[in-house]
């Protein structure tokens, strides 16, 4: 079997098997995991430049469809499937309501998206991925909310797809082909002649990508959906599925790199606009994130904030911008996966997603706690973990263009990410342990293996970023740009400086050892329980003070709300909801036509006829 085809066929077969055997939960999960693994094995068979074409007799034409492996697609494939393996492995031990056959359908769609050479296949896979994920979200824990979340996502997603559909046909009617390659090069060709026209078409595509990645102002579905999706699926949703939009952007971004468009600060203005979309997304995501009390919503906002970083970086479409964006996409996949997997591990143990009801879990789940800690350290961009390099490169890429406002916004988002990460860290893991959770246990052995693996990956790719940067450089090369210089696996090279991550790692390790040594040498400490705490002299037991009453995590950043209140008044969510409501209102009114009274129907029919006769026969 052709390996390219196998990447599509294997998941579909696995999906069918999982659907048939879905009654036996463990078997289904095992099939899901094995299918991901087998798909991954097929990845070793393929290499850049592999191509597979076939013909589809449709629309009265003999349409050529195909799959092709580019540096970008192979990077994406490795990234997403490997993450899928980790997630499905973790899910072997979880009792979440994730439906394996839908996940495998999503995998097939995902592989197709990354490999498709034609718009038909791309759109087919895009929609397939769309509906399988929508159905998946229906399996959330809270019925009403998960249905609402899924429908919200469905509306935005389908709206975006239709926008892309129109774009596809506007394009193919011009060029007479569905091939992505020829369409993009055609657009590049006529960009100088009809810039507005090209931008119009491209923005039809971009709407779909923005919806999928949750870019401002199409981000509103993200918290609703991530917050309610089944726990086992959320990591996939936020780590992998948000990258489809990034991939889409990368298909069309080379267009505007030509010099035919007016530029701002050496940047074609469509790129400039996209960059601002990205920056605003990053800020909005961060700000909204630190006001959440629901942990899944918090990290949903966090996720789309990071997508803002990625978009801002790739919108630059310079070597360093592209490298930084792709690198951040990879890092985001990694740390977001680690964070979400640990978060769902906690959720499955404590049975709530409200952070104000958690606290002190670190005593019960130490490994999960450590993984989460390294995850948020990476998310905050702290060296030497994965996440630092990419953020640092993004800032360099931005500032080297003199984009000071956008850079400061991004930096603000980056600092604000500390706020929401610390909030989650504190409210979930630190602080007082409620007696409710006295019986909480650490994750199972499978979970531990997953967590150790993620922990290792976060450190490994943090100190040896070259393993990611090398493939990214070949992506940059394939876009016709000159890749950044490389000087070894441990180096991150930028404009302003290059950093040796291993040396930082060693320094940090040495100082840590020194710190522990000092800690051990000086005066001894004694361990006390958490109830023995400063209470201004009050004895907690006398006041029936429970640990949860002594945990401050609700409305953690309340003073900030005052300052940001004017910005929060802009409710895009409300716009979409209001739109939906008015459609429903109109529907309510229109429904009244069908009263159930046959006389009315007769009048309608006769009235219609009379109008036709007058309008058509007499007036027309």
């Amino acid at each position: 079997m052709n390996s390219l085809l196998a990447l599509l066929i294997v998941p579909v077969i696995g999906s069918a098997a999982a659907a048939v055997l879905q009654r036996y939960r463990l078997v289904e999960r095992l099939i899901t995991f094995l299918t991901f693994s087998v798909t991954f094995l097929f990845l070793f068979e393929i290499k850049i430049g592999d191509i597979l074409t076939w013909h589809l007799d449709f629309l009265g034409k003999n349409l050529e469809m195909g799959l092709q492996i580019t540096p970008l697609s192979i990077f994406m494939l490795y990234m997403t499937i490997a993450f899928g393996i980790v997630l499905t492995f973790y899910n072997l031990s979880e009792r979440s309501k994730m439906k394996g056959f839908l996940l495998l359908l999503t995998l097939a769609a995902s592989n197709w998206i990354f490999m498709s050479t034609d718009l038909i296949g791309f759109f087919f896979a895009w929609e397939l991925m769309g509906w399988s994920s929508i159905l998946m979200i229906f399996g959330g824990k809270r019925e009403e909310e998960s249905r609402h979340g899924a429908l919200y996502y469905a509306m935005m997603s389908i709206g975006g797809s239709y926008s892309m559909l129109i774009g596809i046909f506007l394009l193919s009617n011009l060029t007479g082909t569905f091939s992505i390659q020829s369409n993009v090069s055609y657009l590049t060709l006529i960009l100088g002649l009809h810039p507005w026209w090209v931008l119009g078409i491209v923005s039809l595509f971009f709407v779909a990508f923005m919806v999928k990645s949750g870019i401002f102002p199409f981000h509103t579905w993200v918290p609703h959906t991530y917050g309610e999706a089944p726990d086992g699926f959320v990591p996939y949703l936020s780590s992998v599925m948000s990258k489809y939009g990034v991939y889409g952007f990368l298909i069309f971004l080379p267009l505007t790199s030509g010099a035919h468009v007016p530029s701002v600060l050496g940047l074609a203005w469509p790129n400039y606009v996209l960059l601002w979309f990205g920056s605003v997304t990053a800020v909005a995501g961060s700000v909204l994130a630190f006001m959440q009390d629901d942990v899944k919503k918090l990290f949903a906002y966090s996720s789309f904030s990071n997508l803002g970083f990625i978009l801002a970086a790739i919108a630059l479409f310079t070597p360093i911008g592209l490298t930084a964006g792709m690198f951040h996409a990879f890092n985001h996949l990694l740390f977001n996966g680690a964070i979400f997997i640990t978060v769902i591990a906690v959720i499955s143990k404590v049975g709530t997603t409200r952070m104000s009801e958690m606290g002190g879990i670190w005593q019960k789940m130490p490994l999960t706690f450590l993984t989460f800690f390294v995850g948020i350290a990476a998310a905050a961009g702290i060296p030497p973990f994965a996440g630092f390099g990419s953020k640092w490169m993004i800032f360099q890429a931005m500032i080297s263009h003199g984009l000071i406002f956008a850079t400061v916004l991004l930096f603000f988002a980056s600092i604000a990410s500390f706020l929401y990460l610390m909030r989650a860290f504190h409210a979930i893991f630190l602080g007082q342990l409620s007696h409710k959770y006295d019986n909480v246990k650490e994750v199972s052995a499978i979970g531990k293996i997953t967590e150790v693996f993620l922990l290792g990956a976060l450190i490994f790719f943090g100190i040896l970023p070259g393993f990611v940067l090398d493939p990214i450089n070949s992506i940059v090369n394939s876009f016709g740009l000159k890749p950044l210089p490389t000087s070894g696996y441990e180096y991150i090279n930028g404009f302003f400086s290059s950093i040796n991550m291993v040396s930082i790692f060693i320094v940090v390790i040495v100082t840590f050892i020194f710190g522990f040594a000092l800690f051990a040498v000086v005066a001894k400490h004694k361990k006390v329980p958490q109830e023995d705490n400063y209470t201004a002299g009050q004895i907690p037991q006398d006041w029936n003070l429970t640990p949860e009453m002594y945990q401050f995590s609700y409305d953690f950043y309340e003073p900030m709300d005052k300052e940001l209140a004017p910005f929060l008044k802009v409710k895009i969510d409300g716009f979409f909801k209001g739109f939906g409501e008015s459609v429903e209102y109109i529907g309510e009114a229109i429904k009244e036509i069908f009263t159930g009274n046959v006389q009315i129907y007769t009048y309608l029919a006769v009235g219609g006829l009379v109008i036709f006769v007058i309008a058509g026969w007499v007036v027309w």
Partner: protein
Amino acid sequence: MSEWTEIVDYFRGRSMWMLHYCTGCGAIELPPTMTSRWDMERFGITPMATPRQADILLITGYLAIKTLKRVIYTYEQMQAPKWVLGFGSCTINGGIYWDSYNVIERLDKYIPVDIYIAGCMPRPEAILDAFVKLKEMVQMGEAKGYEKYVKNYDWYKANQDKVLKRTSPVLKEIEKVTKIG
């Protein structure tokens, strides 16, 4: 080893952080002690906010039974080495509350007091004098009230129970209380 202890004691005496448990009218004497006129910071004595950080527990007045409980709790939350200063007559003999039904008369029946400052009120000079005296005692290795508390915990506990009408130790785990540092 004794040289090391001496050095440690010397620095401990030069850096004493104080937690003032202001129960009665004595608190009014502390602001002048801290501020420009008498400036206790020149002896390295600084007010602290929590028992975890403090070395000195300064009790500035009468102790109702209700407050006694909190004082014991706070004292036990402090870490060795720690010292108690009883401030004013009330901590010595109950002062004007000597016959009150719910005020204790002698503080050192409940927690070990290193130095009493007599007077009603003691002037800031007296407070500073006590601080200096305590410093000297610490540097000489004489102020060992906290060790006395551990050694004679049963006696202190019995006295505490008598007035507090309760049997369990304030900090629950008895072995934690009876262990120094």
